[in-house]
């Protein structure tokens, strides 16, 4: 799927640019974006490294177990058949908690670990399992309660009441999460090929 999307993006850019006479702009943009990727990755090295380090301490100290205990009913409901004491459940809970609190950078390491653990119990290694679909769709439904960055950006641009978007944001986020739960319950179910490995 991503092969097609990426191919379509590149192809569209080239075709549109040649009609627009913007091929030179595109060439520059490609170089600039590559540099931007390095800058982003360097920032990530620091921040993701730091959060992974802290997470390792929390994991060894047993704090992640506490998290996943609290979220156990949610995990059981969303991921039927997944061991709620296993490492995958632990990382999924941590990722959800970090997302709910709006700690985007802290959510990434636990999310990637969750994917690795889910991959270990996945039967078809090139195909997303039901649990992976469920995890990612819930993750991408936007879980965070308060978006600090947007409130900050609003304040920066002279909003009289930057935090007035918290309540409508909560409603919209809640709605998208409900839709996500309904979707995964309907469509992230076993097909024949995946029946054995949930």
């Amino acid at each position: 799927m991503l092969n097609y999307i990426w191919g379509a993006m590149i192809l569209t850019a080239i075709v549109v640019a040649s009609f627009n006479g913007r091929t030179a702009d595109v060439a520059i943009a490609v170089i600039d974006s590559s540099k931007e990727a390095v800058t982003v990755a360097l920032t990530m090295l620091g921040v993701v490294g730091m959060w992974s380090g802290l997470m390792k301490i929390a994991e060894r100290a047993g704090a992640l177990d506490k998290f996943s205990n609290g979220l156990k009913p949610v995990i059981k409901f969303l991921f039927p058949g997944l061991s709620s004491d296993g490492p995958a459940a632990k990382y999924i809970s941590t990722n959800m908690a970090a997302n709910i609190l709006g700690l985007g950078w802290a959510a990434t390491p636990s999310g990637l670990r969750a994917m690795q653990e889910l991959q270990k119990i996945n039967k078809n290694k090139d195909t997303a399992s039901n649990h992976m679909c469920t995890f990612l769709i819930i993750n991408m439904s936007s879980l965070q309660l308060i978006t600090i960055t947007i409130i900050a950006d609003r304040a920066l641009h002279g909003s009289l009441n930057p935090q007035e978007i918290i309540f409508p944001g909560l409603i919209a986020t809640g709605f998208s999460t409900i839709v996500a739960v309904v979707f995964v319950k309907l469509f992230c179910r076993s097909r024949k090929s995946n029946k054995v490995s949930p």
Partner: protein
Amino acid sequence: MKKVPIYDSFTEGVKDGIQTVFNIFPALLGLLVAVGALRASGALGILSNLISPLTTAIGFPSEAVPLTFMRLVSSAASRGLLLDLFAEYGPDSYLGRLVSVMMSSTETVFYTMSIYFMSVKITKTRSTLPGALITNLAGIIASVLVVNWLWG
């Protein structure tokens, strides 16, 4: 809580984290290059113009269309567009409020998907993309409704 060697654990975790960043770098680079090329080509503007009759028909402001697309791909690029809109229309305008709520109830679908699946080498993603798109569409619709209800 157990007693743990905190510094050793920390450095070990950092090592894992760095490995992770290395693993996702190809996906990150590929995506940012594609987004950069799309923006520079003017394709986004054309796409917005094409679907703006449709969006205005359902009462969705056409100024917010490019942001809606960009939001799916890159959070840095969509934040850039958000700040442009704030600068032009003000964060307390109808449009400013709408895009604020929209940004907080949607996610960078393509970015998240490519990085998470790339890290475990999954190529067949099944219902993940349609699910994520429907969910984000729900977030957008809910944003419009709730902003109209509160300030419309």
